[in-house]
C-alpha cells in the first residue's frame, strides 16, 4: 500500500521532470524571474552603493515565494493545456499519491532555483550564507516545502476555475504567511551580525509544525476537491 503510494508519486514526479528536462521552460523562466525580483529589490533599497543591514533574509524569501508561485501555476497549466489532467486523475492511483508526485516535482525545480538564488543574494547583500549552511538549508527546505505544499494543492484546484492566474497568488499568500514569517525570521537570525542559533532553532521547529499541518490538510483535501 505504502509502496504503491510512493511508486505512483515517483512516476508522476519523473514524468513532470522529464517534460521539464526536455523543454526547460518552467525552470528557466522561474529562475530568470527570481533573479529579476532580487534585482528589483536591489534597485529599490540600495542607497549610495550599500544595502541596509538585515534585508537579505527578506529579499531571499520574497524571491522564493514570488518565483515559486510562477512555477506552481505553470506545472498545472501544462496539464490543462495538453488536456492530460483528466487522464492523470482517471489513472487507477491514489489521488494523494498524484498530489505528492506533483509536489515533489515542484520541490526539485524550486531547489534548483534556490541553488542559484541563495549565492546571488549572499553576494549582492553581503549575507553570510556559508556561516551555518546546514541550518540555512534546513530553513529553506522546510519553508519551501510548506509553501509548495499549499501551492500545489491550490494550483491543482484552480485549474478548472476562471481567472486562475490572478487567483493563485491571491489565495496563496495570505495562507502561507506563517511559513514566510518563520522562514524570514529564522534566516534573519542566522544572517545577523551575532547569529542567534536558539532563535533559528525555534523557527525551524515552528516550520516543521506548519509543514505537518499544511501537508496533512493538503493530502486530506486533494481527493474531495479534485472529484468532479
Amino acid at each position, binding site marked *: 500500500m505504502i509502496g504503491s503510494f510512493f511508486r505512483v508519486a515517483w512516476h508522476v514526479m519523473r514524468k513532470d521532470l522529464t517534460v521539464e528536462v526536455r523543454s526547460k521552460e518552467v525552470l528557466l523562466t522561474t529562475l530568470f524571474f527570481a533573479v529579476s525580483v532580487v534585482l528589483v529589490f536591489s534597485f529599490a533599497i540600495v542607497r549610495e552603493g550599500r544595502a541596509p543591514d538585515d534585508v537579505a533574509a527578506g529579499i531571499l524569501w520574497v524571491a522564493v515565494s514570488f518565483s515559486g508561485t510562477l512555477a506552481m501555476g505553470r506545472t498545472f497549466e501544462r496539464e490543462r493545456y495538453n488536456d492530460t489532467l483528466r487522464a492523470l486523475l482517471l489513472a487507477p492511483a491514489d489521488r494523494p499519491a498524484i498530489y505528492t508526485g506533483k509536489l515533489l516535482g515542484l520541490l526539485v525545480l524550486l531547489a534548483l532555483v534556490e541553488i542559484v538564488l541563495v549565492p546571488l543574494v549572499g553576494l549582492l547583500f553581503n549575507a553570510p550564507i556559508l556561516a551555518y549552511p546546514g541550518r540555512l538549508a534546513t530553513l529553506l527546505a522546510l519553508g519551501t516545502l510548506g509553501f509548495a505544499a*499549499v501551492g500545489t*494543492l*491550490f494550483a491543482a*484546484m*484552480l485549474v*478548472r*476555475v*476562471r*481567472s486562475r492566474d490572478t*487567483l493563485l497568488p*491571491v*489565495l496563496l*499568500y*495570505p*495562507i502561507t*504567511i*506563517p511559513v514566510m*514569517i518563520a522562514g524570514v525570521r529564522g534566516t534573519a537570525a542566522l544572517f545577523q551580525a551575532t547569529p542567534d542559533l536558539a532563535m533559528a532553532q*525555534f523557527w525551524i521547529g*515552528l516550520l516543521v*509544525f506548519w509543514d505537518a*499541518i*499544511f501537508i496533512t*490538510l493538503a493530502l486530506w*483535501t486533494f481527493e*474531495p*476537491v479534485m472529484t468532479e
Partner: protein
Amino acid sequence: MKTLNPLLIGLSAVMLGVAPWIINAAPYESTMGLVQKIFYFHFPSAILFLVAALICGVASAIFLFGKKASADGWAIAAAELGLVFGSLTLVTGPLWARKAWGVWWVWDPRLTSSLLLWMIFSAYLLLRKYGGPGSDKLGAGMALFGMANVPFIYVSVNVWRTLHPQTSVVPTLPTDMGIPLWFCFAAFAMLFVALLNLRARLEHQRARVEALYLAEDEA
C-alpha cells in the same frame, strides 16, 4: 427561524441604540480615559470575527467531507460576516491604539494575525465572486487552511513582544465595566446570528433557483 430573525434584529437594534448611554455611564478607565470606551465595540466584533472563522471552517469541512451542499451556504454567509466584523475590529483597533500606544499600528502577533485572517476572508470571497463554477469546493479547501491559521495567534505570542492586552483581562473587569461590555456583546451577537441566518437562507434559495433552472433546461 423565520420569526426569530426579525426578533433578533429588532432587539439588537434597540440594544445598539441604547448602548451609547450605557457606555457613557460606565466608569472611565484610570490610565486611558475616554478612549478606552472603544473597547465596548472592539471586543465584541473581534470575538465574532473569530467565531465567523470557526463557522466558515467547520461548514466548509462538512461541505467537503460530508457532501452536504447546504453547508456551503453557511460557509459563505460566515465568511461575509467575518469580513464585516473583521473590518470593524481592524478599524476600532487602530483608533484605540493611536491614543493608547501612540501609533496606529504595531506588528504585534495578535494584530498581525487579525490582519492575516481578514486577508484570508477577503481572498476567499474574491475566489467565490470571480472563480466561477467549481469555486465552491476550492473555497472550502481554502477555508480549511484559513482556519488552521487561527492558532498562529497563540503560537507566536511568546516570541514576539506584545502590546495587546491579554484575553485574561476580560473576566477580571470590574462589574460596572463588565455589564456594558456583555450588553454590547449580546447586541452584536444577536445581530451576527440574524445576519448569518438571513445570508445563509439567501444562499440556499439562490442554490435552489439554480437547481430549478437546470431542471427546467433538462426537461
